[in-house]
């Protein structure tokens, strides 16, 4: 407690939890909004991503998920990959929209280390709690998340290992093709349901 006080007094670092509490509230408010269900699936995803962008840095996420490969891409390719990866996440989570039914988010702990921070939360769902952590980076005055850790599993690092295998076997063009294929596959499944 004493440490936390002296820390906030010593620097003007914005508080990550104070930024994420209203932000997550905004996201969940949109998810429970009955209006959302009236627009097409594709639009729903785009609408949510546009709000999520306020505190999620998809470029940083794309950079980390590619690792070494990112540095070998030119600016245009980097931009294309960022769009593609964001689209993948949009499609992957679009299916989750229907599952969300007002589960509570509890903020449990935060850690700040220079310009990095971790905000730990618990998603309370039918008597079961799922620990969800946001790993973020300070950009100006805004804390921007670049990784989500669910039950101890980092999304970025999980994709990173899978991408690494594809990169070794099929190279970068192979990876791009596979991501495109995955997106259209998820798209088809969603049309069916």
């Amino acid at each position: 407690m004493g440490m936390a006080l002296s820390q906030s007094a010593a620097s003007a670092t914005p508080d990550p939890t104070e930024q994420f509490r209203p932000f997550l509230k905004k996201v969940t408010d949109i998810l429970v909004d009955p209006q959302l269900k009236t627009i097409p699936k594709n639009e729903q995803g785009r609408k949510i991503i546009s709000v999520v962008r306020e505190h999620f840095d998809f470029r940083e996420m794309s950079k980390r998920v590619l690792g070494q490969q990112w540095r070998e891409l030119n600016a245009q390719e980097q931009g294309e990959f960022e769009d593609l990866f964001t689209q993948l996440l949009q499609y992957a989570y679009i299916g989750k929209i229907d599952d969300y039914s007002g589960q509570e988010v509890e903020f449990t702990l935060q850690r700040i280390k220079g310009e990095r921070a971790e905000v730990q939360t618990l998603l309370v769902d039918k008597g079961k709690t799922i620990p969800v952590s946001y790993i973020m980076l300070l950009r100006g005055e805004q804390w921007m998340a670049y990784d989500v850790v669910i039950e101890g599993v980092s999304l970025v690092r999980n994709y990173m290992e899978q991408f690494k295998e594809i990169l070794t076997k099929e190279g970068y063009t192979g990876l791009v093709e596979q991501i495109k294929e995955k997106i259209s596959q998820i798209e088809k499944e969603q049309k069916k349901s």
Partner: protein
Amino acid sequence: MNLNNLYRLSLRLMVALALVFVVFANASGTEDFLNDESYDDKAVGVKASDPLEPFNRAMFTFNDKVYVWVLDPVATGYSKVLPADIRQCVGNFFYNFGEPIRSVNFLLQGRFRDSGLTLSRFAINSIAGVFGLADPAADEFKIPRKKATFGQTLSVWGVGDGFYLVVPLLGSSTLRDFSGKMVETLATSSYYPWNDEAGTSVAVFSGQVVNDTSLRLGVYEDIKSMSFDPYVAFRNAYFQSRDKATDNVLVPNPNYDVNH
């Protein structure tokens, strides 16, 4: 020789056999997500070697079929019959039974405080929580659940993972963790009230698996549908969540109202 003795003997043999093959190596350090090194290309990858990949992939496919064709439909049916809070109680009950083993493991790892706390969790939940059906230790006394396995203990003692192993029906493991699990199974079977007959033990174990699955329906399919190579995705998730569970346990932040 009755069935139970045979079952125990075979367990002992498997443990002995597994331990013979266990490779000694330094236990890997824990990750900190706030350090960039934990995102390095070199850091992200196979933690333990996977020389049995073809076998493991076959087992992964087998387990996947068992899940999709047997476990999932059974657990779905079960979840329709019993409401979520009752299933949660059943889950608590099984978890509580494992507490003495966890406490012993903490003791063997030299974590005396955690050992004591885990034992008090067992006492509180067995008495105030009606045989562990509820978790007043966490809800009222604010003593959170902490995981300790014999695989972890072996890791503290310097035993390396050996290699990654997908065990039929049990899923992701490593040689070390699987050996640890065998030892734990032997140890718990000595004080479980249903240890008198192998058939009963199997039934109880199946019940536990169905109940656990019913509490996380859809999670498996979600991860699978979002993956490019589910085998790699689950291998990675296994190592990540295991490393995280070792020490990073949530402590409520005094600066924030948890109920907010």
